[in-house]
């Protein structure tokens, strides 16, 4: 549970106000120990400052030095800065402002602010008995909080909350900027984001779009792929990869994957190429690029362009080059759970080719080159400006988060590599992974998943039915056994909790639960 800290409790702690200071401090610490977040209300800033000054002045002689007030103010500011350092600021929203007709606008604002939280997940920590009597379901005294049964935070499969806590002030400012300038479609944030992402990937052009699926679709459309054409991809992936091929009435041609990286097996690529092959679309599954060097080399021999589906591996590298900079076109997704995720759908296409970039920009806006002129058939594929604002802020953490993800992956490897029946993923030489997921092969997957669930550890089996066995692609006429490695991985894959903010203790808890489950 999160706690919104009332001014009186904050002052208890900041001024060590007796006899309340110790209980108030224990309640705050207990909340942090339980994985909760402590919030200070932005609207309380002045009250905090002046109430603390008042408390600090209590010990002062009436004839103190003339600069004493200023000095106490400085001291109060220092104490409040230190106190606020491990707390989140809860913004004051316009809807919480017009409460002048209430008997106590200050408390009304605090109570109104609580309504933003999911019911039961946050309370106001206060010693104000009047407030507690009026709002018994929304308030708690420090003593009540300490005496309430503990409910430690459960483990998230993907922890987005910690990241949000780090960037929240910038996120809120960015979203509010968009609300004020009102350019909800193709606002200035889009151009800014495209510049930053292109520089990060080190590719001349970044074209943002409405989703990772749209990125793939736009890439195929830019290459004029259509009826009668074949596009080679893998059967072990999210359905978008093959779906966009079928949407353009082209034929997905599957190539099996490697058993340890779960990515396209280049050894099997050449045999799938026909005179109708118009593109190869390898996927960097779970955070690691496919063997793009070999795939590019084979495709080049046949003059076939390669579209990299880097929806899950944005930020990863292959022989020192970033994902999305490994072929003619790189596509990625900003789905919320992706290593770089927005708060909705989003995606981007990258290319070094000027003409292709121009075409992709037209396709993104209904094939429009200039206003009301549509030389091409396109889609409605623009990224929302608000999502670009979110991404701009989250991107400030991205390089650090990629490094943290790699550390978590290595730590999982060390913890799990000796457990019989568990086969950790293999990162191919020359690759780095951003571990969009940490996915192992487990010989007794379903039983393990069930036992982990009982132990409070979330786990997910992704893509349990490979695409060649999906009804959507029944027309291709595939049978079980056609792509044995994909089928084996689909039957054994299991992903464990993963995020840059996973703690050592959480990883050890996962490993312990796995050992005990087998």
């Amino acid at each position, binding site marked *: 549970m999160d706690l919104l800290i009332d001014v009186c409790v904050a002052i208890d702690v900041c001024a060590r106000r007796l006899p309340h200071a110790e209980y108030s*401090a*224990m309640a*705050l610490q207990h909340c942090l120990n339980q994985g909760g977040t402590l919030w200070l209300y932005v609207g309380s800033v002045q*009250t905090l400052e002046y109430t603390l000054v008042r408390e600090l002045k209590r010990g002062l002689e009436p004839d103190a030095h003339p600069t004493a007030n200023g000095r106490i103010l400085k001291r109060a500011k220092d104490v409040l800065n230190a106190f606020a350092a491990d707390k989140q600021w809860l913004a004051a929203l316009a809807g919480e402002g017009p409460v002048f007709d209430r008997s106590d606008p200050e408390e009304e604002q605090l109570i109104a602010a609580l309504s933003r939280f999911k019911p039961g997940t946050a309370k106001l920590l206060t010693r104000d008995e009047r407030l507690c009597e009026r709002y018994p379901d929304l308030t708690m005294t420090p003593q009540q909080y300490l005496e309430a049964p503990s409910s430690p935070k459960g483990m998230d499969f993907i922890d987005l909350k910690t990241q949000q806590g780090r960037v929240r002030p910038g996120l809120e400012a960015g979203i509010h900027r968009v609300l004020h300038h009102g350019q909800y479609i193709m606002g200035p944030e889009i151009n800014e984001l495209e510049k930053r992402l292109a520089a990060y990937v080190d590719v001349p052009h970044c074209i943002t779009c409405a989703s990772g699926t749209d990125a793939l679709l736009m890439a195929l459309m830019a290459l004029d792929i259509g009826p009668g054409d074949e596009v080679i991809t893998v059967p072990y992936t999210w359905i978008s990869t093959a779906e966009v091929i079928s949407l353009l009435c082209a034929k997905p041609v599957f190539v099996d994957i490697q058993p340890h990286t779960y990515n396209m097996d280049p050894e099997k690529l050449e045999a799938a190429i026909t005179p109708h092959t118009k593109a190869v679309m390898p996927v960097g599954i779970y955070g690691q690029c496919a063997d793009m060097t070999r795939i590019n080399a084979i495709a080049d021999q046949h003059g076939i362009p390669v579209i990299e589906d880097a929806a899950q591996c944005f930020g990863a590298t292959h022989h020192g080059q970033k994902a999305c900079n490994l072929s003619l076109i790189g596509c990625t997704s900003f789905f919320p759970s992706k290593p770089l995720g927005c708060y909705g759908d989003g995606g981007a296409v990258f290319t070094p080719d000027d003409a292709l970039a121009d075409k992709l920009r037209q396709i993104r806006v209904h094939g429009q080159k200039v206003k009301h002129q549509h030389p091409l058939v396109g889609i409605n594929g623009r990224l929302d400006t608000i999502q670009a604002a979110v991404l701009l802020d989250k991107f400030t953490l991205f390089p650090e988060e990629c490094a943290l993800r790699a550390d978590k992956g290595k730590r999982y490897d060390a913890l799990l590599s000796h457990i019989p029946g568990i086969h950790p993923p293999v990162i191919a030489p020359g690759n780095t992974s951003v571990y969009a997921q940490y996915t192992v092969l487990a010989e007794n997957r379903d039983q393990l998943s069930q036992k982990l669930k009982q132990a409070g550890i979330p786990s997910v089996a992704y893509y349990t039915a490979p695409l060649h066995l999906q009804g959507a692609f029944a027309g291709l006429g595939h049978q079980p056994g056609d792509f044995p490695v994909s089928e084996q991985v689909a039957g054994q894959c299991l992903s464990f909790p993963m995020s840059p903010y996973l703690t050592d203790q959480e990883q050890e808890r996962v490993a312990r639960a796995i050992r005990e489950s087998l």
Partner: protein
Amino acid sequence: MKLEAVYDRGRLEFTRPVLFKRDRVHMNVEVPDSEILHPPGQDPFPQALVDQARAMLDRLDAIRNAPLPPEDQVPEWNSSRLERMEAFDLRARMREEQGRPA
């Protein structure tokens, strides 16, 4: 001097009016053992939590008790600050009169 007082939800009230020289005075209070749920130092909370809370308070104490800043770092205390201080002082006094914490 021994005085009779009543404890009422965090506040001590003397049974007879007493005029003090200052607003804030330290004193020792004799409390009947039978009225205490948890004697000080014997809280029913894990020692680790108590230690963490005390460390938090000590960190803030250290900032509060640090040497006074030099004159040039002292924020200006002008009439508008004074007015605001008086307003918040009034807020605090009103709350205290209502039996509410400031």
